[in-house]
């Protein structure tokens, strides 16, 4: 997208008819509703969230937040104290969330690229495969997770039937939703729902690659693998960058998958950050601490996004 200059010729009619406002005001008028909403639903809550992170806002003060005592950085100190119970749990939750995010994002990208390449070639019935692969992504999130919750049941689930009775891979049916395996249940569930998103966007990008690039490469005797590395990968790079960023944010912020699989008391191995903050706030009713954790999360996401956007120039005017 080329940089557009402000063209005075673009708004003459407005200038003539609404002289009392001036043509420069027109874009601001269009933005008034959006700005009002942005302030009410994003800016004010975010600033307020930072404010309450400095208060001892417990269930006692929830109806008059202004009465809650000011405690300075106390909530942050408790949240980050690595030797305290709350601090070490937060660090643990952060690390679990990072591992979960990396596995799901990497897996989704690999699956997405592989499936997009498979469906991109010409053959009969490719439309059916395309539609089938998209279904998990189109389901409401909670439906996808409830389906996996049922499949992962120890004595009535289809996964244990498959692994124990049909394939004989395991001797005894394991508990998937309790203990250490809960982490892998989480990863499988999220991956199943996330990879079609990568597939959808990467397939669209593949279809935009000019065919003559491949024809020229084939004339020069390049193998398919060589064509993939030298043409396909560089051509889908901008879309891949966006896919990875979006999936990173969705997965890192994921609340639905652990909440629906485990409810309000997840096993330690599946205690993802959003749910961790939720439990601290709405179950343990320590809103100040929850707000401090949210503020830390906000800082972390902000830094990651800025670094990533700078590195890959995602969302810049030239790429938009």
């Amino acid at each position: 997208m080329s940089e557009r200059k402000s063209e005075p010729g673009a708004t003459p009619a407005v200038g003539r008819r609404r002289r009392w406002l001036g043509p420069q005001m027109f874009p601001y008028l269009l933005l008034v509703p959006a700005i009002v909403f942005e302030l009410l639903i994003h800016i004010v809550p975010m600033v307020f969230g930072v404010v309450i992170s400095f208060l001892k806002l417990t269930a006692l003060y929830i109806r008059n937040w202004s009465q809650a005592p000011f405690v300075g950085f106390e909530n942050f100190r408790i949240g980050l104290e690595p030797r305290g119970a709350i601090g070490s749990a937060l660090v643990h939750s952060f690390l679990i969330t990072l591992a979960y995010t990396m596995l799901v994002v990497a897996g989704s990208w690999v699956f997405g690229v592989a499936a997009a390449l498979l469906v991109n070639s010409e053959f009969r019935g490719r439309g059916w495969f395309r539609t089938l692969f998209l279904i998990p992504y189109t389901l409401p999130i909670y439906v996808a997770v409830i389906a996996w919750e049922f499949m992962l049941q120890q004595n009535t689930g289809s996964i244990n039937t498959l692994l124990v009775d049909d394939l004989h891979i395991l001797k005894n049916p394991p508990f998937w939703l309790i203990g250490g395996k809960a982490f892998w249940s989480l990863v499988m569930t999220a991956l199943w729902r996330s990879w079609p998103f990568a597939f959808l966007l990467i397939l669209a990008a593949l279809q935009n690659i000019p065919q003559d690039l491949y024809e020229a490469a084939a004339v020069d005797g390049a193998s398919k693998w060589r064509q993939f590395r030298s043409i396909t990968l560089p051509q889908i790079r901008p879309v891949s960058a966006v896919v990875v960023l979006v999936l990173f944010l969705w997965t890192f912020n994921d609340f639905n998958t652990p909440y629906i699989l485990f409810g309000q008391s997840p096993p330690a191995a599946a205690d993802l950050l959003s749910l961790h903050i939720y439990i601290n706030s709405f179950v343990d009713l320590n809103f100040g601490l929850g707000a401090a954790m949210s503020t830390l999360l906000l800082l972390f996401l902000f830094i990651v996004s800025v670094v990533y956007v700078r590195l890959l120039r995602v969302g810049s005017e030239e790429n938009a």
Partner: protein
Amino acid sequence: MREERFYRVLRVIGLAFFTLITAFPLYTVVISSIKPLGDVQSAFHWIPSRITFEPYVQIWSTVPLAHYFINSVIVCVSATVISVIVAILAAYAVSRYRFFGRNPFRLTVLSTQMFPGILFLLPLFIIFVNIDQTFGVHLYGSRVGLIITYLTFSLPLSIWMLVGYFNSIPRELEEAAMVDGSTALGALFRVLIPVSLPGIVAVAVFAFMTAWGEVLFASVLTTNATRTLAIGLRDYASQSNVYWNQLMAAAIVVSIPVVAGFLALQRYLVQGLTAGGVKG
């Protein structure tokens, strides 16, 4: 052509793999929804002992599913309509004009889209409770309150996608209309909106789908009267018993609107998604 053959075999294996991992959970859901309760409470079998459509009848009486359905429709449609209207105006300004504050606005929209819901839920919850206490206005537990919180994700998403879509439409169309004496606002309504209709529909469907699947806000901000499907489906599990066959049937019923909508409009949705900042 050994290479050709190798890739054909590879494609068959690959497609089989992805078909299996996609279809396995879908099959489990569909087959369990037509099993009698006894089947889903014992070890899973691939074939039902007998096929029954009773779960599809029972779901409406075990849980007030129709009521939850109505709540979900009201909240999701309202949030979508508000988002799309506000987003059309904002996206028109951002896409067609250069003005002071344009980039800060774009960045605010982009970054708020990235932040997790929990970041907004916690302060909004406290704000709602305190507004109730001070002014007696019930936002906590009401549909209006839920709609407001749904705008936190549907609005930035709609603005961002629509800016991308409007950018992909040549401005000469509106300029021609304005030469013919149309105002800028007239050009928006008579030229740009009709031309962008596929993109606007795509944005609306996308915003609706996201709202339809929302769990976090609904889990805190709804009461029995305003409960949405996302939370209401929990009710098929009582203390002692989970009606898995009914839960699977209900899961299918609540998925049909969004899955059908997405698949019917998938071409526009892909276009809209790729235009919305994803385009290389």
